[in-house]
């Protein structure tokens, strides 16, 4: 087994070249990790290595490069499988991102299982990517999209949720961790309640995979999806885990090469899993790059990362709360990775503009989760989102920046 050493953030930071630059004349503080993460050198190197050696198209080639690329690609898939503890590699579908994955499920599960009058349940906390695809398929199928309300504290109201489940419910689609507020949803309980009613559950794990130990068999979720780029891997790759029993019954989503067993103009038969859901030339380079990212993460250890991030988050929340007029959203709810806040009645865009000038990258706006912003009756928030390479000193830089914002707009 891998021997753990104490978490050494200054050593870890050396692995991330993009952290060491100046922005607006100040050393960069990158606190926009929920939007996309920086990449360790190992990931960048693996892309570089791929393009200078085995670069070729996969699966159908008889030549050596193609065989090596295919092997590396399928090894990556097996690595993803082990990382989330899926039962079979064929339950791991490669997509272009979380949004692509959710569209696949909404369209393909929806085609197979939604009927007129069916119900789909999401929560009021969702990212647009886990709202709009369901709106679209519900409208097509004459199904109804139902939304779990939140408690005062911006947590999913489990009691109301339990009462919403019924024999019309076709699927529940819930985020693991809210990107806008950082709230960790009680997904295990949601899955248990849903399964008691024979309802499958899809988890949007775009943030969840980053901050939690994900074991899909332990969770017993029916689908789980995430993006490489938010989890220290390259852009352009996503994962969709799905239980075989559902994937088998779902029709293909996109069609073309790869996912085909045979084609005639009269009849086309589809390939087996996972290829049925993967068409066109896959993004081999970045899949292999994501493989390297997962290795990097495993080497540090997910437990160590979570422990450090939680410390950092606690420090961040208490530091920011110390400033008069700072209001932390969903304060007190169980949280990971995100501090979403407002400063007095200063518009988030104003605050973000000044914070950026001070070399700190935060995000402002509705974070693609407009409904929860509407619910909270705010135009958006300032969001500082953390990674395990961030430091308490960086939090303190943010603290200083907020004080300057208050002065300027006071």
């Amino acid at each position: 087994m891998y021997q753990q050493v104490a978490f050494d953030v200054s050593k870890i930071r050396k692995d991330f070249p993009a952290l060491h630059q100046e922005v607006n004349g100040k050393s960069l503080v990158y606190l926009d990790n929920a939007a996309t993460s920086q990449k360790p050198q190992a990931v960048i190197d693996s892309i570089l290595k791929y393009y200078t050696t085995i670069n070729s198209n996969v699966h159908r080639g008889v030549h050596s490069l193609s065989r090596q690329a295919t092997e590396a690609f399928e090894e990556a898939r097996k690595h993803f499988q082990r990382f989330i503890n899926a039962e079979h590699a064929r339950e791991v579908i490669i997509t272009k991102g979380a949004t692509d994955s959710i569209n696949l499920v909404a369209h393909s599960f929806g085609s197979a299982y939604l009927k007129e009058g069916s119900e789909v349940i999401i929560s009021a906390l969702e990212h647009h990517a886990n709202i709009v695809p369901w709106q679209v398929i519900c409208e097509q199928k004459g199904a109804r999209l139902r939304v779990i309300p939140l408690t005062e504290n911006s947590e999913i109201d489990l009691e109301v949720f339990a009462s919403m489940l019924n024999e019309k419910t076709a699927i529940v689609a819930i985020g693991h961790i809210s990107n806008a507020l950082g709230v960790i949803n009680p997904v295990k309980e949601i899955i248990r309640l849903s399964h008691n009613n024979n309802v499958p559950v899809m988890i949007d794990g775009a943030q969840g995979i980053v901050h939690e130990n994900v074991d899909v068999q332990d969770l017993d979720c029916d689908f789980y999806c995430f993006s490489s780029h938010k989890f220290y891997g390259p852009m352009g790759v996503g994962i969709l885990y799905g239980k075989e029993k559902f994937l088998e019954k779902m029709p293909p989503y996109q069609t073309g090469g790869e996912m085909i067993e045979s084609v005639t103009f009269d009849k086309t038969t589809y390939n087996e899993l996972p290829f049925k859901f993967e068409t066109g030339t896959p993004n081999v380079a970045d899949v292999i790059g994501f493989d390297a990212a997962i290795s990097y993460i495993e080497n540090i250890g997910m437990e160590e990362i979570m422990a450090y991030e939680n410390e950092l988050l606690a420090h961040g929340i208490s530091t920011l709360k110390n400033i008069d007029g700072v209001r932390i959203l969903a304060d007190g709810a169980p949280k990971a990775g995100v501090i979403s806040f407002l400063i007095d009645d200063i518009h988030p865009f104003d605050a973000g503009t000044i914070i950026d000038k001070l070399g700190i990258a935060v995000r402002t706006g509705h974070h693609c989760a407009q409904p929860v912003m509407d619910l909270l009756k705010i135009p958006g928030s300032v969001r500082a989102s953390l990674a395990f390479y961030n430091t308490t000193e960086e939090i303190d830089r943010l603290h200083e920046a907020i004080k300057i914002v208050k002065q300027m707009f006071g």
Partner: protein
Amino acid sequence: MTVNESAQKIVEEFGMFDDWMDKYNYLIDMGKSLPLIDEKFKNEKYLISGCQSRVWLSAEMEDGEVVFKADSDAVITKGIVNLLIRVFSHQPPEDIIDADISFIDKIGLKEHLSPTRSNGLMSMIKQMKLYAVVFKTKMKEPSA
């Protein structure tokens, strides 16, 4: 003052600031001093889309000149619209249509010009020029 003269004046004003913080403090002041738009204009119809903050812009014709009024829920945005109003308001439509916008670059607010959708300066200018086009067309039409 012509469009160019107003623009030149603003470039000179901004030229006095050595650092970004003074510049933004000035923008914030200008934002606070923006003559507010009539509440009745604060609706969907006058909202400029493509901004992270909300911006409402109205335009009217007075003696052959276009008069702009605006508001925003963010102060910096207000300051920026105020700049634009100082340059473009009370000008004949064709001058607005033909106006050179390089002064924005010169005063060091280029970052607000970037092609992001979070950032409405381009949309504001586009909308102002659009109003000018509409008024110009109307002026040419024989009154019914």
